[in-house]
């Protein structure tokens, strides 16, 4: 797909990071305001990793996926 701007390794790293953040937030490993931040911040790398498109990359005209 042409809109994808993340390489496979980038997507895997994002998905793992997202799951770890969600786990830390939702499982109560990290509590308090930081835990709440993790609960929702984890969705960001998870979704961008699954979709393969990073809006920040698009804005900065950067991509890890080779054309």
């Amino acid at each position, binding site marked *: 797909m042409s809109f994808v701007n993340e390489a496979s390794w980038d997507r895997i790293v994002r998905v793992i990071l997202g799951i770890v953040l*969600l786990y830390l937030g*939702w499982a109560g490993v990290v509590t308090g305001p930081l835990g709440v931040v993790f609960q929702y911040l984890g969705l960001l790398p998870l979704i961008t990793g699954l979709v393969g498109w990073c809006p920040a990359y698009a804005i900065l005209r950067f991509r890890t996926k080779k054309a």
Partner: protein
Amino acid sequence: MSVPLLLQTLRQNPLPVVVDVWAPWCMPCRAIERPLAVLKEEYAGRVDVVKVNADEQIEAARALGVTGIPTLVTFREGKEVARHTGSAPTAVLRQLFEAGLAGDAPAARVARKGAAGPAPVARTLRALTAAALLLTGWLSGPSILLIALAGAVLFSAVYDRCPLWRAIAPRLASVLRPRGQ
């Protein structure tokens, strides 16, 4: 062109190849003859065009799985990446040439087959993510949000194999497609 020669041409050609299966008596074939010639010239050096006369090269047409003419099949590195049967405007013919360059099937083919789906790597990544989310959701409460998210991610991994989705996808596509296309 014999079947072995045709297959050899498709496999060994470094350029994408658009195979035009036609017949002299076929009026739609004549209708696309001129736009095809223009595109052939425009894409010269980037995409090759091979003509297969369905009357004279029956085995070759059969090997390509042709059930009606004109049929245009785009090959890239010996693999079929796009196909169109019937007369078509230049824009659709151009899509077949572009599909050869991009290696992607045109939207029309994807919609017709309804089975394009995610790439194997993406499918695996989504399925594993869904499992991890489900586990995390179960261990943390359980969290309905994470379990619902796991369900959505799992569906995105296998949506192309869901009979309900395959039934409604073409209708959705026709509703969402801009008028005049």
